[in-house]
């Protein structure tokens, strides 16, 4: 099997390293993260719609902190899961896809798609800075959807190329 370009390999390996590190830090720094997240919600009181009622505000804070922690957790799982898939797909592209242009486009889409898990970091930060709904919408619209679409397009493109290759060489 041929290997994909170094840039793609580096991005995939970097995402695995970041994913592992985030996973390892999540548990020991949980209380520090919780404190930081609550402080950010308080600092962005208007965005989170805090009213000054202790009971309601605590509920809002807890929901925002939960969303931020979920973002970090999703980053951990997606970084560790998607990066090997990208490496495998890149290897199939390198080994099977003929033609420089098509291969180049698939490599580019896969490399950008490998960054998809970073969208969950944006999700966690944006939730705290701009409020839960606005933060989730921001991360989905500007980070998760474009990067995820790149990965999906790359995989669909690979499926099409593989189907064509299979049809043109049925005896192999």
């Amino acid at each position, binding site marked *: 099997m*041929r*290997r994909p370009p*170094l840039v793609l390999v*580096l991005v995939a*390996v970097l995402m*695995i390293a970041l994913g592992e590190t985030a996973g390892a830090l999540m548990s020991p720094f949980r209380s520090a993260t919780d404190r930081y997240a609550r402080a950010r919600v308080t600092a962005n009181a208007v965005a989170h719609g805090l009213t000054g009622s202790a009971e309601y505000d605590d509920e809002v804070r807890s929901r925002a902190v939960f969303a931020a922690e979920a973002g970090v957790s999703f980053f951990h799982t997606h970084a*560790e899961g998607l990066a090997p898939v990208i490496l495998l797909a890149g290897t199939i592209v390198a080994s099977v896809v003929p033609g420089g242009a098509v291969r180049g486009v698939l490599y580019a889409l896969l490399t950008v798609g490998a960054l998809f898990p970073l969208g969950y970091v944006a999700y966690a930060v944006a939730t705290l800075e701009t409020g839960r709904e606005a933060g989730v919408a921001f991360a989905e619209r500007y980070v998760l959807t474009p990067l995820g679409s790149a990965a999906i397009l790359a995989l669909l493109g690979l499926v099409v190329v593989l189907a064509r290759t299979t049809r043109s060489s049925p005896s192999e």
Partner: protein
Amino acid sequence: MTDGTWRLPPVPVLLVGVALIACAEVGGGSMAQFKLELARWARGIMLARPQVHGLVGVRDVDEQILDEALVKFDAGLRLFHLHAEGMGTIIIVTTMVASTLVPRPALRRAIVLLITLGGAVYPLGYLLWSGLIPFRGVAGGKTVAEWLVWIPFGGAAIVGMWLLTGAVAVRLIQSAAKRSQPAP
């Protein structure tokens, strides 16, 4: 854009990766198959150690404590299943990257060893935690698993991954520099 082919990591490394995935699958299947038996066993051990779990003899209070511990017991088994499946794949993929792209033998061997050993033993920490919960409580079991498994072996895997990331980055820079040099 492409140069070269993948080199496979040493066979024992492949064996470790595949065995870990197989253990994870067996673990996942067994978890579902023996869910009731496992819960009954854990509950029995916990009831025999009331002081470890802070049981007070009041049914309403004790049932809540037992339920919470059983949820963690089950979570430990699930986390073993998830992490072993994931790390098995990561061991195979990343050691293949190291075998192909790290030219210095000593560094390559260190990276492969750190990732393989760290990645293979780390998920077992969840199994250890789960097994210790009935005997030592949720926090007590976690402390043992952290110090015996998660910190040393998880740390080794993380160090190995960052060394690999650095080595691939250096390789990329060297390759870009070579390409930018004018041809003699």
